[in-house]
C-alpha cells in the first residue's frame, strides 16, 4: 500500500497532575487531544479505524518527564505538515501538565534507544548530607538486589537480580537543602531498568520513607549516547 501520511515525532513534557496518567490512559488522552485539536491526523485503515499513535518508552506512574516521545501520522492530502501550527493546536487541546516541546520528522528507529537519564530530588526530615551519604553507602554495596516479576516460559515468576552494574551516577549534590541525584539507566528493548525500582530499593536500604521523591526523566539516549531523535 502506498504510504499516504507523513511521520511526525513529538517531544512532550509530562509534569504536575499529568504524572498520575498511566501509560495506557495516555494513549486515550492523546487520541482525544488529536480530535479536539482538529488535526488531519492519520487513522489506521482497519475494520475499526483509530488514530495511529506510538510511544517509544513507557514512563512509570508518578514519574515526570521533559522528553517523552510519541509518533503519529498526518494525512498527505492535507499537504506538508506545519510543525508550528500543529504544536500550537495540540498544546491548546492538551490537559494540564502535558505540553508539546517540539515536533520533527523521526530520524532514528525506536529500537535504537539505549539509555535514559533521570534526576531525583528527596524531600523529608533528613538533611541533604544525610541522604547523600546514605546514597553513597547504598551505591558502595557489593551488589544491589531487587526482586523482579517476569515471565519465564509463560509462567509468572519472581527473580532476584543485581541492579548495581546498571546504575550510572552522574551527579549528586545538595540543592537548596535537599538531596539531588542524577542517574543514567539502560533503556530500550534489549535491556532496561525502571527508575522506580532504583528509588524503591534505595528507600528499602534507608529503612524509612521519604515524604516525597520527585523523579524526572531528562534525556532519552541512543546506544552510542547521542540524544535520541
Amino acid at each position, binding site marked *: 500500500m502506498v504510504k499516504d501520511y507523513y511521520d511526525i515525532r513529538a517531544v512532550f513534557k509530562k509534569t504536575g497532575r499529568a504524572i*498520575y496518567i*498511566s501509560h495506557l490512559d495516555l494513549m486515550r488522552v492523546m487520541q482525544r487531544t488529536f*480530535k*479536539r485539536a482538529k488535526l488531519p491526523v492519520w487513522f489506521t485503515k482497519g475494520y475499526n479505524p483509530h488514530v495511529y499513535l506510538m510511544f517509544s518508552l513507557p514512563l512509570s506512574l*508518578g514519574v515526570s518527564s521533559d522528553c517523552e516521545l510519541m509518533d503519529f501520522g498526518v494525512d498527505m492530502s492535507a499537504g506538508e505538515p506545519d510543525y508550528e501550527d500543529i504544536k500550537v493546536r495540540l498544546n491548546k487541546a492538551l490537559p494540564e501538565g502535558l505540553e508539546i516541546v517540539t515536533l520533527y520528522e523521526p530520524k532514528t528507529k525506536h529500537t535504537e534507544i539505549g539509555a535514559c537519564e533521570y534526576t531525583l530530588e528527596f524531600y523529608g526530615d533528613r538533611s541533604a548530607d544525610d541522604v547523600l551519604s546514605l546514597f553513597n553507602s547504598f551505591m558502595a554495596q557489593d551488589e544491589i538486589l531487587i526482586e523482579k516479576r517476569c515471565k519465564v516460559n509463560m509462567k509468572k515468576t519472581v527473580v532476584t537480580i543485581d541492579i548495581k552494574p546498571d546504575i550510572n551516577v552522574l551527579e549528586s549534590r545538595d540543592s537548596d537543602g535537599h538531596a539531588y541525584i542524577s542517574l543514567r539507566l539502560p533503556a530500550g528493548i534489549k535491556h532496561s531498568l525502571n527508575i522506580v525500582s532504583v528509588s524503591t530499593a534505595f528507600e528499602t536500604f534507608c529503612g524509612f520513607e521519604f515524604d516525597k521523591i520527585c523523579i524526572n526523566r531528562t534525556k532519552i539516549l541512543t546506544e552510542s549516547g547521542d540524544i535520541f531523535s
Partner: protein
Amino acid sequence: MLKTKIEKLALRSNKPSRYIGGEVGSVVKDKSKIDVRFAFCFPDTYEVGMSHLGMKILYGLKNQRENFWCERVFAPDKDFEKLMRENDIPLYALESLDPIKEFDFIGFTMQYELSYTNVLNMLDLAGLNVRASERSETDPIVVAGGPCVCNPEPLAEFFDLFILGEGEEVNLELMDLYAEMKKLGKSKSEFLAEASEIEGIYVPKFYDVAYNPDGTVKSVIPHSGAPMPIKKRIIKDFDKVYYPDSFVVPFTDIVHDRAVVEVLRGCIRGCRFCQAGYIYRPFREKSVDTIARQTKALCEQTGYEEVSLSSLSTSDHPEIEELLSKLVDYTESEKVSLSLPSLRVDNFSEEILEKINRVRKSGLTFAAEAGTQRLRDVINKNISEEEILSTCKLAFIGGYSTVKLYFMMGHPTETDEDILGIVALVRKISDLFYEINRGTKGKFLSISVSVATFVPKPFTPFEFEPQITSETVKHRHDLLTQSFKSKHIKLSYHDYRVSLLEAVLARGDRRTSEAIYKAWKKGCTFDGWTEHFNFDNWVEAFKECGLDMEFYACRKREYDEVMPWDHLDYYISKRFLISENKKAHEAITTPNCAQKCSGCGVKKECGGTYCGKGLL
C-alpha cells in the same frame, strides 16, 4: 499541604488519576471571587459517578455562573479511604483539592438505594457529623436530589434539605438565596426556613411524622409554616433548558466513557413496575436541531470517539428517523460511533436497524421483563411475542448472533407458569436463529438471560404490592435453572438479599434512618458491590432498631394507607395509581401517552408533548 499529602498517597493507591483532578473540562476558579461553593458528591466510585449525566449537567450549569463554583467529589475506593483515614486527609473536592467541610453546600445525588451508606461514610470522611441535627450552624448545608429522594424519609436524619424533581432551575434559585442570606449574615436555620418556601425544596425537620400502633404512618404534619404538599420541579421548556457544551474528560477508563446527549425526558410507556416511567413525567423531547447541535459541540470539546443518546426510550422520539439520519451523517464523517442504548422492540424498524449498522454492530438487548403475554399485560409492558420475534428475525438476518434478554421475577400475580414462559420464549428465539442460519456451519446463537427480582417502588401502581418472598424466589430460580441446559444460554440472577434491602430502603419511613446509621457503623459501605455487600450486618442493624425488614418489603399496603412519601407531590395522583393497580390485577393494559392521555395527574401546563391528548 493537603495537596502534597494527597499527591504522595495517591501513588500508593490503585488508579491514582481518580483522586487528583486536572482533567480536560474540569473547572478551576479563583476562590476569592466566589460567593457560593458547592461540593457535588456522587456516593460511589469515580468510574461510576463520572458516568452519570445529571452531575455533568448540574456541574456545567452552576459553573456557568461566575460567582458559583461547583466541584466534584466521589467515594474513594476502600484502599484509598484507608490511606486517607490513616493520614488524616479529609474528603476533598477534585478541582481545588480543598476539604469539602469548608464549602457552603455539600450536595449528593441519590441514584440508587444501595448507595445510602456511602453518603454517611463520605460525610464522616469529610469530618462532619452524619446527622443533620448534630451538625453546627457553621457546617455546610447538606442537600440531596435525584430519583431516590422521591421517598427521602429513610435519609431524612442526614440531610438539611432535599431537592425534588428536575434540578436545572431550583439549584440556582437555592444558591442565589443562599448567597443573598450569607451577605446579610443570616443563620443556617433562617436559610432553611426561607429555602422551604422555594417550590421543590423539602426541609424534613419542618415536618412531624406520627405512627399508628401497627407501625404504619399515621400522619405527616408541617410546622413553622412549611408548605404541604411539597411539589417536585419540572422543566417546562425542555428544548431550551441548559445543557453542557463541555464534559470533564477522565484519564482513566470509566463505566460510560463517551459523550452523551439527552434526547428525551419522561417516558410515554407507563410500565407499571418502572419508577422512572412515573417520576420523570411528563414526556418531553428535544428538537432534532438542538440534539444535533449539542452532539457536535460535545464531540468537539471532549474529543470522544463515541456519542450516545440518553433517554428512557430513544425510539419514542417523535422524529427518530430524521434524528438518526442527521446524526449518522455527522458521526460518520467525524469517525465517531453512535450508540443508542434504550431502543424498544416494538418500533425498531428496519431503517433504524440499518442506520445503527452503518456505524457499529453492537449487541441486541431486549427487556421483555416477563415470560407470558398475560404477565406482560399485568405490568403494562406492551410488547407482544410476535414483535420480539420479528425484531429478532430482522436482527438475525442482519448478522447478529448475540441476544441479551432481561426479565424480572416476582411481579404481582406471577405464577410458575409465567416463569416457564421465559423458557418458552428463549426456545422460540433460539429456533428462529437456527432456522435463519440453516446450513451455515459453526454459527451459534449466544443468549444471555438475566433475571432480576422485582422491587416495588414509590409513585408506581405497584407501590402497594408486597415483594416476593425468599422461598418463592428460590423455588422459581430452581425451576429456571433446571430448564436451561444449553451451554449457549447464560442464565444469571440478581442476589435476592440485595433486592430485599433495596425494597426496604425504597419504601422505608423515617425510622429506617437509624438502621442505615447502624449498618454503616457496622462497616457497611458500597452495598451495591457484591464483594462489599454484607447482608448480616443489615439484618442485625434492623433488629437492633426493633424494625422488621419484611414489614417494609413484603407487606401488602391497603389503598388508604398513608405512605411515608404521601406529603410529596410528584404530580402522579393516588387515584390514578389505584386505578392502574386494579387494572394490573385484571391484566388490562393502559395505552401509552402518545396513543391516549391516561390522565395520570400531570398537568398540561407542565409542558408534556402528549398531555391531555385524546381526552377532551
